[in-house]
């Protein structure tokens, strides 16, 4: 790629890119070290759609692979430039362009950080529920591109439920606007929701029109420590069956209790196999009543310790700890392999039993946490050492976990996306015909195949 730096300087100015290896190191990565498998030739940081379109057209003309990037906080290798080329970093496109009170919508640029956006809308009395746990850094563009979600999905769904329209740049540099700011829209193919979750393989998402909700007046948090994983899983499915919908319902392992105890008092008993962390919302009275009813139900079922935390600042501590658990666990082991399998909620007890059985059979340390309320589980294999043999065993175990999830009517990814991590499993879930159709769609958007190559399906299916 001779002359790349000179060309990029012409397109985005000298401050808008870097080709220096010292800057590029970090752009090999997302939030999982072993997905860093390719060296980009440049990172480009456009300040808006016009610059981005120029870069896309240039990459198309020269057949340069182009990998869109938000915060690089993903867990599937979705934004790692495995074929080199250009990393297109969207973080300088960070304008909240409009918060429309009368229409309950907002229009944002792709690089807006989720937490900043939530703060801005909540300041005006609105609510944007999707809450991937990397919310302090992750970008709305990245959220849309992966259909990201988090604990609130149990009641409020994930990013996909909030995207009304998009602005996107096609690989040849053409700009399209899909969807609208209307709540109802029934004209043509729904390209908005085709691009949502396309993981940068079809086009570059530059703006999004998002739906807002009124902010619930109050929340109440509750926590239950359970003697067995099975009991925790049964509480989850019986709660859902009973018609109670918490705003968050998280299943955590007992190891998390020690982390909570560094921040909360009185300390929680570090016993049992699992704990449930829940939030209810509504009026203050409603939220408290639901939390108390849930607490009573947990006690009746045999929970070791149950607490209700109505004070929002105290509750915030529990949820802060929750959002940091994953990186904290990772920092304690040599390697952690995380899954993102989602099953129908009534199958969670069976799935939990299966996962624990696989861990035992394969002789691996496995934890099972997740957004149990929406069936999205994160089995994690924790390794104290890294070896080819161990990694092969972990891969085998994860394949078994995925197959177990699929057999229960589940899906291979609830919120992380496919990326590199689950490319070899896509056909397993969707079937050969559906993936073939997806590949034809990809060809229609991206005939030269520059967009995020090496992702979603295995290399042998790339054409």
């Amino acid at each position, binding site marked *: 790629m001779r002359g790349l730096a000179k060309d990029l300087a012409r397109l985005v100015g000298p401050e808008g890119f870097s080709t220096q*290896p010292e*800057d590029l190191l970090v752009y090999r*990565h997302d939030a999982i070290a072993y997905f860093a498998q390719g060296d980009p030739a440049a990172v480009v940081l456009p300040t808006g759609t016009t610059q981005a379109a120029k870069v896309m057209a240039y990459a198309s003309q020269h057949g340069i692979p182009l990998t869109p990037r938000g915060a690089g906080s993903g867990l599937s290798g979705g934004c790692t430039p495995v074929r080199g080329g250009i990393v297109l970093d969207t973080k300088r496109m*960070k304008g909240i362009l409009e918060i429309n009170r009368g229409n309950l919508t907002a229009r944002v640029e792709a690089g807006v950080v989720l937490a900043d956006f939530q703060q801005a809308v909540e300041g005006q009395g609105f609510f944007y529920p999707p809450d991937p746990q990397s919310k302090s850094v992750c970008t709305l563009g990245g959220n849309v591109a992966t259909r990201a979600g988090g604990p609130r999905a149990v009641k409020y769904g994930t990013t996909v439920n909030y995207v009304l329209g998009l602005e996107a740049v096609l690989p040849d540099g053409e700009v399209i606007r899909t969807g609208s700011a209307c709540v109802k829209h029934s004209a043509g193919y729904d390209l908005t929701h085709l691009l949502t979750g396309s993981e940068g393989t079809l086009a570059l998402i530059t703006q999004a029109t998002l739906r807002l909700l009124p902010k619930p007046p109050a929340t109440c948090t509750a926590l239950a420590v359970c003697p067995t994983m099975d009991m925790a899983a049964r509480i989850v499915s019986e709660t859902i069956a009973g018609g109670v919908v918490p705003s968050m319902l998280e299943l955590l392992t007992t190891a998390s209790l020690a982390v909570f105890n560094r921040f909360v008092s009185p300390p929680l008993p570090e016993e049992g196999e699992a704990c449930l962390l829940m939030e209810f919302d509504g009026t203050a009275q409603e939220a408290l009543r639901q939390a108390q009813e849930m607490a009573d139900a947990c006690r009746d079922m045999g929970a070791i310790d149950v607490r209700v935390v109505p004070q929002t600042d105290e509750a915030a501590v529990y949820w802060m700890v929750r959002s940091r658990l994953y990186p904290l666990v*990772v920092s304690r082991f040599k390697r*952690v392999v995380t899954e993102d399998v989602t099953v129908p909620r009534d199958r969670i007890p069976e799935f939990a039993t299966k996962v624990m059985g696989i861990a035992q059979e394969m002789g691996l340390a496995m934890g099972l946490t997740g957004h149990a309320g929406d069936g999205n589980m994160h089995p994690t294999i924790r390794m104290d050492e890294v070896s080819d043999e161990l990694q092969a065993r972990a891969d085998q175990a994860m394949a078994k976990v995925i197959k177990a999830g699929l057999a229960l009517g589940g899906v291979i990814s609830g919120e992380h996306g496919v990326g590199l991590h689950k490319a070899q499993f896509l056909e397993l879930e969707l079937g050969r015909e559906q993936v073939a159709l997806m590949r034809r769609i990809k060809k229609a958007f991206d005939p030269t195949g520059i967009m995020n190559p090496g992702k979603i399906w295995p290399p042998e299916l790339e054409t």
Partner: protein
Amino acid sequence: MQGLEQYREALERCSQCGYCQASCPVFSQELLESYTARGRTLLIKAALMDGALPVGKRTKEIVANCLLCGTCAHTCPGGLPLDEIFVAARNQLRPSGPAASLKRSLHRKLMEQRGHPGALGKLGPLAKTMGLAPADLPQPAAHPFLADQPEVLKPSGQMRARVAWFVGCAANSLHLDTAQAVRKVLLANGVEVVLPQELACCGLPALAQGEVDMAQDLARRNLAALAAQEVDAVVTECTSCVLMLRDKMTRLFEPESPEAQAAQALAPKVMEVGAFLHKLGLSQAPQGRDISYTLHQPCHAAGFAAQVQAGLALLEQVPGADYRPMADPAACCGAGGDFFLKNQALSQGVRQSKMDQIERSRAEVVVTPCPACRHYLGLALGPDKVKHPLALLAGAYE
């Protein structure tokens, strides 16, 4: 300290989560990921530890382009000692040659003299005129504060407590009004003050340059001087001195070494002077002051923000003084010690966001216990508009 190698295990524990993007003031300006802790640690490991990349100009720039505010270390879910790793990287990248050693020995001299350049101070304005020193470099006072202080200051009334006062370099040679205010408030409230003559700079500026040996020498001297004192507390008006004496110094030496043990013993006695006074309680009620103020919380206080808040609670006892909080008191001002002298555009960008917040608070003055923040915000707001919190309290004892 054995250099970067001692941090290998910590570096290998980095989960790569990228949460450090949320807090880095340098990254928030540039939005280039090589300026996040994740980017810096990957580079440090590749270039300075594993030899996977040659060490060039860009590596040096990226390592230097950090305020060492330590916010990333507080944000890191894995609790990695990121700021210590960056100091060790600077240590490895220290320049050599005659010019660098001259600069190093001048720096050492300045720190040994507690921030006062002595006769060399006269060269400052000349060097600025000739373009040899940055125009924003503060000019020291002709006579340092400590030059005419006795070793023990007796309080006006009955003695309620006895403290050793670690006068920071800035209060000694730049911001004498801060030192005078601290003296006045302590003495008015029955505190006997010891000023140990053997003290030197706390050594934090040396660490910022990666001069670990120099920081250790200064720490040894300070530990010896303070160990001899029979006092209720060691107080200082400077946030960075608190950070060094309470926190950094405990990890500056080999674990279990006599110095490390001495530092561990000293650390819990060190308090920000406002927090100490808040705990002791004021024995003399301040008079009313018609003034509105906002607080800028220095980045170096991230690990002991409660002490800054306690200092602020003191000001709430001044009748008529109106506290107008800004949106994010802990957001960086851009100074970063002397970082602003070398990275003007970056620092000015960071400062501008702070200025917007200050303006929206509609306070007349900004109070901050950090002299670097004070100096740098003062360059933009005017020197009278930024004060040490105790200066505001001292004004209520006229």
